């Protein structure tokens, strides 16, 4: 797989570390049920999937990569926190 890093261009996936599903967001409070959902429950879709990859051996940005889990086609990638691009 090659990941189109917005900062570095198209790079081998070996330069990246996969963090997994980008959908879960850490809940603010201490609601145990919300935390359980955040830590453990996943949609795990077969098809288009947005996930976090860290460009460890490159620009060291966190990316949101959209990828098809059925055939590993990568549709696109953007910075996880665009405001830090500068």
């Amino acid at each position, binding site marked *: 797989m090659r990941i189109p890093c917005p900062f570095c261009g198209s790079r081998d996936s070996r330069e990246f570390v996969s963090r997994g599903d980008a959908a879960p967001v850490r809940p603010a409070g201490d609601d145990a049920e919300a935390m359980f959902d955040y830590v453990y429950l996943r949609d795990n879709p077969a098809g288009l999937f947005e996930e976090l990859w860290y460009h460890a051996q490159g620009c060291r940005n966190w990316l949101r990569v959209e990828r098809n889990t059925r055939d*590993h086609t990568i549709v696109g990638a953007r910075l996880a926190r665009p405001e830090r691009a500068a």
Partner: protein
Amino acid sequence: MRYSIVQLAAQALQRHRGWQPAWRDAAPRDGYDVVIVGGGGHGLATAWYLAKVHGITNVAVIERGWIGGGNAGRNTTIIRSNYGLPGNEPFYEWSMKLWEGLEQDLNYNAMVSQRGVLNLYHSDPQRDAYARRGNAMRMHGVDAELLNADAVRKMAPFLDFDNARFPIQGGLLQARGGTARHDAVNWGYARAASALGVDIIQNCEVTGFVRDTSGTVTGVETSRGTILAGKVGLAVAGMTSHVAAMAGLRLPIESHVLQAFVSEGLKPLIPGVITFGAGHFYVSQSDKGGLVFGGDIDGYNSYAQRGNLPVVEDVCEGGMALMPMIGRVRLLRSWGGIMDMSFDGSPIIDHTPVAGLYLNAGWCYGGFKATPASGWCFAHLLATDSPHETATAYRLDRFRTGHVIDEKGVGAQANLH
């Protein structure tokens, strides 16, 4: 038709024209007492034990593809019960005991071969960890032996003992572990279950669940029509999230691809199953002569049944670090299977919050060795509505309550287990 030496001789005299298909390729009927979704090893084993142990023979196993086309035919055929945690070890040992009697039970040659599983250690802390695991196994009545380097050298002189980075100091041996012919396990369960009246229905994909007004699951919608059921059991590891979503469930599971490899055929070389303790690499030799080996999952969600080259390279590097003699062996085939990676690395055999729907899932990449006990315990759950005594820890709600079974101790990240 019972298989025996007498049968073989009789068939030989008829020029082998009298053999019958091993199981009936059934068409779906309107309804069953139990419908098991997934015709892999676990589903077929469940059907067999439902019929044999609990006398429930009005059972259908429905399979989207064909019997043995999924992970049952994609694993690396290793059987063992060398676990450390109390939630795991009795279950896997029960599986090991079932393996030991499986062929007589099924009247089918599954080529169960207890050739030993050897986990190598390369440092003092790792030796201590293995000693602890071996002791835990022995406290559960399971065989385990801690070997020093000399003893390992007698078993496998070809290993790179004096590797500068990862010298081999010894290993933890489970002599009763070994391998089994994975296809034969499937076929054996299918044949035995079919003979007791279980319908095995291939090319039958579940497209939804039939629910009554209270929400209870009372059947499945399939590509071959509606099939009603008293109870529905899911044994669709790899696709669990996908199928469970049809019943409105979200589960602590991610699907990941695990690759496996086989080399060209070689003369007898590797005595049992050997695992590298400093990287993730394990190898055994099939009876046909090929080296069967594998390592880590690719690490990202996948339903593709094929992996990518970085893991191929990583696995082969592990092999070269362990046994440099394989450097000129040619790789014959590689393939991928889709794993249910649970968030603690352990499986789930439990009720679901949906009445009438039962779950067998989350096998990570350790499902093959568990096939007999998984079938036994899932059948017990389906028949009695209570968990089998060796599977009481495999609850679906353990993630919510904090009773996770994290054998590897890496926490709640599916791709690390």
